[in-house]
């Protein structure tokens, strides 16, 4: 089996030849620049660069040499842009290692050693000294919903997730027209498809709940869901117009080239969901269903939902809504017991993640403990397909490279 066939077999719930695995297929299944630089040093890999393609979370784009070494089966099509050395420049990361930022990303270094990002004179993002990611500094609808949504595109453009978006979207603005960008994207994805056996993923986001929290601020939007559902629905309708447009263009451009389309919408926290299952069904599920339907009707792509936290309460609804894959499978959150998830939902959805806990195990345990823990998770998830090995979210800067390699030894062991 090729890597792509292996991943697709797993998603189709057929047992692949061996365990498929991923590092870096999207910005929540990857590795921070700092951890990546440490890992390469540990492995004695002196060539190449630590290229941070998601500047918000400071996530690195793993290079072929690393992907080959660990046997990764999927790629983020973000890499079709920023291919040249001149698309990047050197920066000293918080741990003293040298990484690279995309040439278009020019934050201002502050007097105390942090970084600020301005847009039209407005501070939109900040990373404190010693930080590991940029945080949102402006919430355009924090005070209230607007009288009309004429400025929604501008408001969304001030939010760091849009203003500092990763590839391939970071190059959209370089093209004279939207169609010219999508034509170029298709050409580049076809080239990538021809050059690799790995499965390809494109991130389209299309977040609904999360856009509400980005625009209104988390506390306000959470209250709106209960106290002002009509305003929430009005905003979602507006977001849907934009999201369906993105999907229309993306499916037409690369729907026959790329294998998986990644959506995002964090619905859970450690302790529970952000809202009740009833509220999810009332306000969000109908729209999530529409997004999935569009992709499935207009492309060959499988759909992937990134949702952190405790989401057991709506797993059945997410399957109903049409998602093929769920990530990152935060197994230590409330009700997210891995064996129960596999037993109850394993036939209907693919778990892309859950392979190793990044909050307490991967960063704080010994390599032996990491190895044993990872073997245990693989035992739970891997049988009958429906599993692509990945960590529970990105590998953060404080993870020792010895632990990362212990985790991948467990993957290799499962592949024998």
């Amino acid at each position, binding site marked *: 089996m090729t890597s792509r066939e292996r991943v697709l077999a797993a998603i189709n719930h057929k047992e692949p030849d061996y365990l498929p695995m991923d590092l870096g297929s999207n910005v929540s299944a990857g590795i921070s620049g700092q951890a990546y630089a440490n890992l390469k040093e540990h492995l004695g890999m002196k060539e190449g660069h630590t290229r941070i393609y998601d500047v918000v979370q400071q996530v690195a784009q793993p290079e072929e040499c690393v992907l080959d070494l660990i046997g990764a089966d999927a790629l983020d099509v973000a890499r079709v842009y920023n291919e040249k050395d001149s698309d990047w420049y050197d920066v000293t990361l918080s741990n003293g290692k040298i990484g690279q930022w995309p040439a278009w990303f020019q934050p201002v270094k502050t007097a105390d050693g942090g970084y600020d990002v301005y847009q039209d004179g407005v501070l939109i993002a*900040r990373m*404190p*000294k*010693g*930080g*590991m990611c940029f*945080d949102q500094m402006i919430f355009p609808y924090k005070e209230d919903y607007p009288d009309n949504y004429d400025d929604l595109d501008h408001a969304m453009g001030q939010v760091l997730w849009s203003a500092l978006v990763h590839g391939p979207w970071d190059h959209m603005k370089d093209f004279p027209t939207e169609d010219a960008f999508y034509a170029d994207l298709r050409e580049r994805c076809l080239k990538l498809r021809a050059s690799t056996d790995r499965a390809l993923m494109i991130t389209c986001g299309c977040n609904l709940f999360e856009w509400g929290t980005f625009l209104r601020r*988390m*506390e306000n939007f*959470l*209250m709106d*869901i*209960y*106290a002002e559902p009509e305003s929430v629905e009005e905003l979602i309708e507006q977001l849907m117009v934009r999201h369906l447009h993105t999907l229309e263009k993306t499916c037409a451009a690369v729907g026959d080239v790329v294998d998986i389309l990644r959506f995002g919408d964090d619905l859970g*926290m*450690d*302790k*529970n*969901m*952000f*809202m*009740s299952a009833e*509220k999810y069904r009332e306000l969000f599920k109908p729209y999530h269903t529409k997004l999935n339907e569009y992709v499935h009707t207009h492309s060959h792509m499988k759909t992937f939902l990134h949702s952190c936290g405790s989401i057991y309460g709506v797993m059945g609804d997410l399957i109903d809504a049409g998602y093929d894959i769920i990530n990152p499978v935060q197994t230590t959150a*409330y009700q997210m017991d891995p064996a129960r998830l596999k037993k109850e939902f394993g036939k209907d959805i693919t778990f892309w993640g859950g392979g190793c806990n990044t*909050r*307490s195990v991967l*960063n704080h345990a010994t390599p032996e403990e990491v190895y044993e823990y990872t073997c245990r998770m693989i035992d739970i998830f891997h049988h009958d397909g429906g599993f692509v090995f990945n960590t529970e979210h990105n590998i*953060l*800067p*404080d993870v020792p490279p010895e632990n990362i390699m212990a985790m991948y030894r467990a993957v290799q062991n499962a592949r024998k």
Partner: protein
Amino acid sequence: MSKIQEVAEAVEKGKAKLVGGLVQEALDEGCDPVEILNQGMIDAMGVVGEKFKNNEIFVPEMLVAARAMKKGVEVLKPHLASGGTSSAGKMILGTVAGDLHDIGKNLVGMMIESAGFEVIDLGIDVPIEKFIEAVNENPDATLVGCSALLTTTMPALRDTVAALNEQPFRDRIKIMVGGAPITQAFADEIGADGYSEDAASAAQLAKKLAATA
């Protein structure tokens, strides 16, 4: 149902638009303002916190209840003898240096306020000196709450607590810590007085610690 019970019910259900009017009606009926505060609002928020802890309600329901209480307090404040509602004590709160995250910290602040405390929120990315300065400037503060969301800012939390532990005012304050990666074991290890895993538990812990401070 008594007017105070009506206030309590409106707070519990998060009826922000109704609470102010109901508090006014209770005052007009001659109810004791302190009783309206304690039984109509602080106790109601205690019930809300308990339901949240038991996973019977979700964060937004807790938030709308706290917002509703705030509306009621606005009406009540001029009628309270001291002009204040911070009968339970004063807390200094902040997210530690290097960490810009405040959603959880704000929730904690809201719930602790709803339990009758005055909360002085120092915001995010708070240097150690600022915590120390705030405690010195507020000799009546009995609690300090420090939050860290990231595994990578746990060391900053450790340093903050260590510095507070060295201060001459240490005996008059209790230190509470929290945040996604924090555990009771970590709180014990770094010398904090208490840890709670969510905002509702934090309010209960604040009451308990303030009683012994």
